[in-house]
């Protein structure tokens, strides 16, 4: 019962946070210098005053700001994100079209970084000064220092001209018919480089973090007790130590989800990945504000949901934390 109540409170909290994102972003964009109608006019190459007035009323820009805000919030609550100035299509449709590609990239990268990173960290913690530990230190330094778009481009050079075994652009082959197992494999094949690029930064960081936290946990009393009881090293490592050692990694993962989404924008640009990042980027340059607001809202929702998920994961790993 208590758990349910806590869950409800959390959901409420998340909903309010998302609402704040909607309201504040709307105000930010409306209060900034520049008139959206002029932007549309510019993209159409100059228009008459009549058409200008018509556009103004069509997009509700002739209303006072509080009314515009109320209308926008009401529409958003009904799942209507408005019409794109540029495409003249519903923003929700534009976003829905791009979401799968971005989610696929982001989730795959996080999964790779988390699983591979902790695995490397655990292995390295067995020999704190061994070659793997040193490799991880170097990897985490270089992984952090190289701009993600640049390391992506270095991979493009490598796999486009030096060693052409992987596709360096787009999500599908020209020849793919988009159906069946072949299409899935085709996408997976195209995903390899973008996923690796995006996960590299976090892979490096998580391996370092899990190594450090594993070393700390392995020095604690309860591990000594477990060993004294005569448990196998395997059991001690994976059933006793790993659980606690994972906690800091999960915490960082939750905090960084927004950064991963942001990194996806850069990686999508490098690899021509047809995701939300490029829609965001293009819309920002075109000052297509309804789409920009939609993308901001959507990425905020993704981050909020992921935070809830990491919260749940945290609880699963550490049963001491309840409510």
């Amino acid at each position, binding site marked *: 019962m208590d758990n349910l109540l806590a869950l409800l409170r959390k959901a409420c909290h998340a909903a309010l*946070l*998302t609402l*704040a*994102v909607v309201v*504040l*972003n709307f105000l*930010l*964009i409306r209060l*900034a*210098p*520049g008139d959206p109608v002029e932007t549309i006019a510019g993209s159409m190459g100059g228009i008459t005053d009549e058409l200008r007035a018509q556009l103004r009323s069509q997009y509700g820009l002739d209303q006072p700001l509080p009314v515009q805000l109320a209308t926008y919030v009401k529409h958003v609550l009904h799942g209507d994100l408005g019409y794109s100035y540029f495409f003249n299509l519903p923003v929700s449709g534009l976003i829905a079209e791009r979401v799968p590609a971005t989610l696929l990239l982001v989730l795959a990268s996080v999964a790779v970084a988390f699983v591979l990173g902790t695995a490397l960290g655990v292995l390295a913690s067995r020999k704190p000064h061994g070659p793997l530990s040193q490799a991880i230190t170097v990897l985490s*330094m*270089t992984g*952090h*220092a*190289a*701009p*993600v*778009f*640049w390391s992506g*481009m*270095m991979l*493009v*050079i490598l796999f*486009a*001209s030096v060693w052409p075994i992987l596709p360096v652009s787009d999500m599908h082959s020209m020849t793919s018919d988009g159906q069946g197992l072949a299409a899935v494999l085709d996408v997976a094949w195209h995903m390899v480089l973008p996923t690796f690029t995006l996960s590299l930064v976090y892979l490096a960081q998580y391996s370092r973090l899990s190594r450090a936290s594993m070393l700390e946990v392995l020095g604690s009393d309860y591990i000594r007790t477990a060993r004294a009881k005569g448990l196998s090293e395997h059991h001690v490592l994976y059933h006793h130590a790993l659980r606690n050692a994972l906690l800091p990694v999960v915490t960082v993962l939750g*905090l960084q989800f*927004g*950064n991963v*989404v*942001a*990194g996806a*924008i*850069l990686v999508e*640009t*490098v690899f021509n990945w047809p995701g939300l990042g490029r829609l*965001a*980027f293009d819309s*920002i*340059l075109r*000052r297509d504000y309804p789409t*920009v607001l939609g*993308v*901001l809202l959507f*990425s*905020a929702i993704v*981050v*909020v949901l992921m*935070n809830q998920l990491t919260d749940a994961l945290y609880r699963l790993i550490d049963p001491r934390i309840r409510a």
Partner: protein
Amino acid sequence: MSSPVSTAPAAAPVAAPAAVPHPARDAWRMFLRSRAALAGTLLLACIVAVALFGPMVYDADPFAIVAAPQTAPGDPDAWLGTDQLGRDVLAGLVYGGRASLAVGVVAAVLSALIGLTAGALAGYYGGGVDEALTRVMEFFQVLPALLFAMVLVTLFSPSLTTISLAIGITSWTATARLTRAEFMRLRDLDFVRAERAIGAGNARIIWRVILPNALPPLVVSGTMAIGSAILFEAGLSFLGLGDPNRMSWGLMIGSARPYLLTCWWAVVFPGLAIFASVLSISLIGDGLNDALNPKLRER
């Protein structure tokens, strides 16, 4: 405390307690002992020197066309080659460093100031203040910083100032969280209570009593923040949202991207410059972390 073995001649002056070095000097010695930190400092010093004095030695316009487009490195007119328009890559590197480093430092200072203030107030006062500031932090945490900064920069037209502001405004939450935790840990300790008992006001306790004690981890995170801000600026410029009138490393990479396979040098060299800058800052940050955190010294 009587000391039966005290055989010091009475004539000797009472020496200052030299056995206890000043903590800052101690940390400095630790820092110097780390080879990685020294290497980082040296590397950064070189990069900063090139950015500061390079333009005086190597007088060139980074936007000027000096040779045929996509001239390969090794050409006498352009040692590191030219980009797709025929602009000198070396001039870009030398002049672009100023923008990249300046934005990095200004944005990091700004985000440290916002983060410190918010974190200190939230951690010290707790209650309603903490609640309100935590909500603000959550707002900034759920919006992907790069995306939000892209919007800010476009809305207020890109210049080095707006870019620094946008990076500072969107990336202060990590510092704030850290400061908040430190202040919460320290605010009820005895030395703070003692200060309060002798009548020190809140402002004095926050800035003069707690902050100096909370400083070591904040110095480290502030150092690292410069590196992150450099990467952030590079990302923005790469996407074409940098200041179009100022050469920067990110801008070079972004504008040469379509020619990546025929003109790799225009992408590789500026990327290496960013990499070296951020790496050197990370090495310094790591060194500071070891030097300022006595618990880590044994390792």
